[in-house]
């Protein structure tokens, strides 16, 4: 495969990252997808739009959040110098809000009157409900019944914020089914509704747009690392479900050849146990077409989509953002995986060592750091995207540890 001059120019005008991406949607939605694309292109060219986002991120979200030197964890692992990018300190407790601020400002610009979204763990649902409250827009969140059962605190948060949470009972009742249901709503309410997709996946322009809104993560890391260490980081580690926090951290560094990037998928009970036991689309899937884009998917021989498994509801999605599929194929980013057990261990280690309870999603990335850092020299600067806080997960973790709350 030939090496491109830059890794940062994608997608092309038809939304392709190499062979991935595209616009695989029903005709009813196609005119709307084109409208979103045009509106986003115009908004990006408008300094007032950029200014409004920057203002909200500063005053409402609380950015920039710290690039924190995790000294005790560094000592404990005895190798690389570990920094946490503290996305969990954002308002609403995860990176998801970065994207929601950008998209709701776009929806308002487009004159849309109603917001819909899908959610898995509930973090994107909470972030969406939050910005809808802030901008006084009606909000409907689709969430699988299975996820509703395991993420009660977030369901209540969304309701407190004034959102309507619609339980989805089709399929395995998790994130992919919630996305199907959101698409069904959108196709029915095309005129006034904006679909606020939560990850860097879906039809063009969503993968590129969500990446752009999340790139504030990597942009800040670049500046902060320069201030702290006077140079670029050596490696970046992030978890990947759909992949929005990872692409947001990675994208600003893709053309810095000295920066290594590692994305961690959810291996669930173990990749070797077969496609129903994990949610690692790249490590354990193959390319296909779902939810508007071509990308790596968990699917059977007949092209039927499989229900992935992960301890983390936020990674429990059978696909991944198309830019990740491309970055994997060209070898710019390394894709690895962490099991439920490795994740639980890292979750507890982080809580006890650093006094930070991480989201189970982010704990997958921590599990990789635990494996990787000890083998690296002490001057190796490693950045972990601590994408979310773990308060929402204490009930599931307690259950896995056999503790009754």
């Amino acid at each position: 495969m030939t090496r491109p001059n830059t890794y940062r120019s994608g997608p092309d005008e038809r939304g392709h990252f190499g062979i991935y991406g595209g616009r695989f949607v029903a005709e009813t939605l196609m005119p709307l997808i084109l409208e979103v694309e045009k509106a986003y292109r115009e908004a990006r060219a408008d300094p007032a739009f950029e200014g409004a986002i920057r203002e909200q991120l500063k005053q409402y979200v609380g950015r920039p959040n710290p690039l924190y030197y995790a000294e005790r964890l560094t000592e404990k692992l005895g190798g690389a110098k570990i920094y946490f990018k503290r996305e969990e300190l954002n308002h609403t407790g995860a990176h998801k809000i970065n994207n929601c601020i950008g998209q709701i400002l776009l929806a308002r610009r487009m004159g849309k009157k109603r917001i819909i979204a899908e959610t898995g763990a509930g973090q994107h649902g909470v972030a969406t409900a939050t910005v809808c409250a802030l901008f006084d827009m009606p909000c409907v969140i689709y969430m699988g019944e299975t996820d509703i059962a395991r993420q009660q605190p977030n369901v209540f948060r969304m309701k407190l914020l004034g959102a309507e949470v619609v339980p989805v009972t089709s399929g395995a009742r998790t994130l992919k089914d919630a996305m199907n249901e959101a698409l069904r709503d959108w196709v029915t309410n095309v005129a006034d509704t904006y679909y606020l997709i939560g990850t860097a996946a879906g039809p063009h322009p969503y993968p590129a747009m969500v990446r752009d809104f999340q790139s504030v993560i990597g942009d800040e890391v670049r500046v902060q690392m320069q201030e702290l260490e006077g140079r670029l980081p050596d490696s970046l580690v992030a978890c990947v479900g759909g992949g929005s926090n990872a692409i947001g951290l990675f994208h600003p560094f893709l053309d810095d050849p000295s920066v290594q990037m590692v994305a961690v998928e959810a291996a669930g009970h173990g990749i070797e146990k077969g496609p129903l036991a994990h949610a690692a689309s790249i490590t354990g899937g193959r390319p296909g077409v779902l939810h508007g884009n071509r990308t790596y998917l968990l699917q059977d021989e007949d092209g039927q989509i499989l229900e992935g498994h992960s301890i983390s509801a936020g990674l429990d999605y059978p696909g991944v953002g198309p830019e990740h599929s491309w970055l994997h194929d060209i070898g710019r980013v390394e894709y690895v995986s962490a099991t439920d057990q490795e994740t639980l261990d890292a979750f507890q280690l982080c809580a006890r060592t650093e006094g930070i309870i991480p989201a189970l999603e982010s704990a997958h990335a921590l599990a990789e750091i635990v494996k990787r850092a000890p083998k690296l020299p002490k001057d190796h600067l490693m950045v972990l995207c601590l994408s979310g806080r773990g308060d929402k997960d204490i009930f599931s973790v307690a259950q896995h540890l056999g503790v009754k709350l």
Partner: protein
Amino acid sequence: MSALNDKAVDNGRIARRFAALKAEGRAGLVTFITAGDPDLETCRAVLHGLPAAGADLIELGLPFSDPMADGPAIQAASLRALHAGTTARKTLDLVRGFRATDADTPVILMGYYNPIHAYGVDRFLADAIEAGVDGLIVVDLPPEEDEELCIPALKAGVNFIRLATPTTDDKRLPTVLQNTSGFVYYVSIAGITGAASADNAAVGAAVERLKRHTDLPVAVGFGIKTPEQAADVARVADAAVVGSAIVTRLAGGLDAQGKARPGLAEDVLGFVRELAGGVRGARV
């Protein structure tokens, strides 16, 4: 997107059927069932009985795990079919078996792209032609993705029937119609299958609008549930498509375990006969 110059000649079954309907001075009835719903045997009985019950064209759903443009009735049908072990290959087997008994009724496969993508586009097209498939409707392949399957299908001689919708405005319509063949399927409402019905005047106006842009026959579907509604559509369009209502009738013939009760196929075909009566009597 460019116009296709080297389109292969298809078997002509769809064109012949619409020509015959025109000669009879009536609209056609297009019936949708999902392949392998509720099981292959029962589906075969329904499929083989459709022409005699009055179906002029047959849409056979290629089941998919994530039918995001479909309402609850067809979602459930798709899941029943998958649980019964239906695959793309078995769907083509159903068509092949049907073709052995009926050489004239067009069969159109309707579904989503991923099962075809997984099968391999070229292999799928070759096998579909061999089985006797006349056309494809693939919901998640808009004109923007024509190179994926539409153009290969047209080159191979398989019709690619496009959906036009209320959101497809006059500016976009030529894009949608450019590589469409066989007929145009007008989705009469912005929504999912089996939802609300459009009003007659709006459907009539939409068909007129389409006719200004194309000489292809126009079939209208989504939300047609009764023989009366089918008759209303038959007065203004070249064909009426009924899907969710037939699938719902079929689901009514299942026992608590989801197995077909005796007489299910006859009951479904009886309903098709009523729909055909509506369509055939519409312009009298």
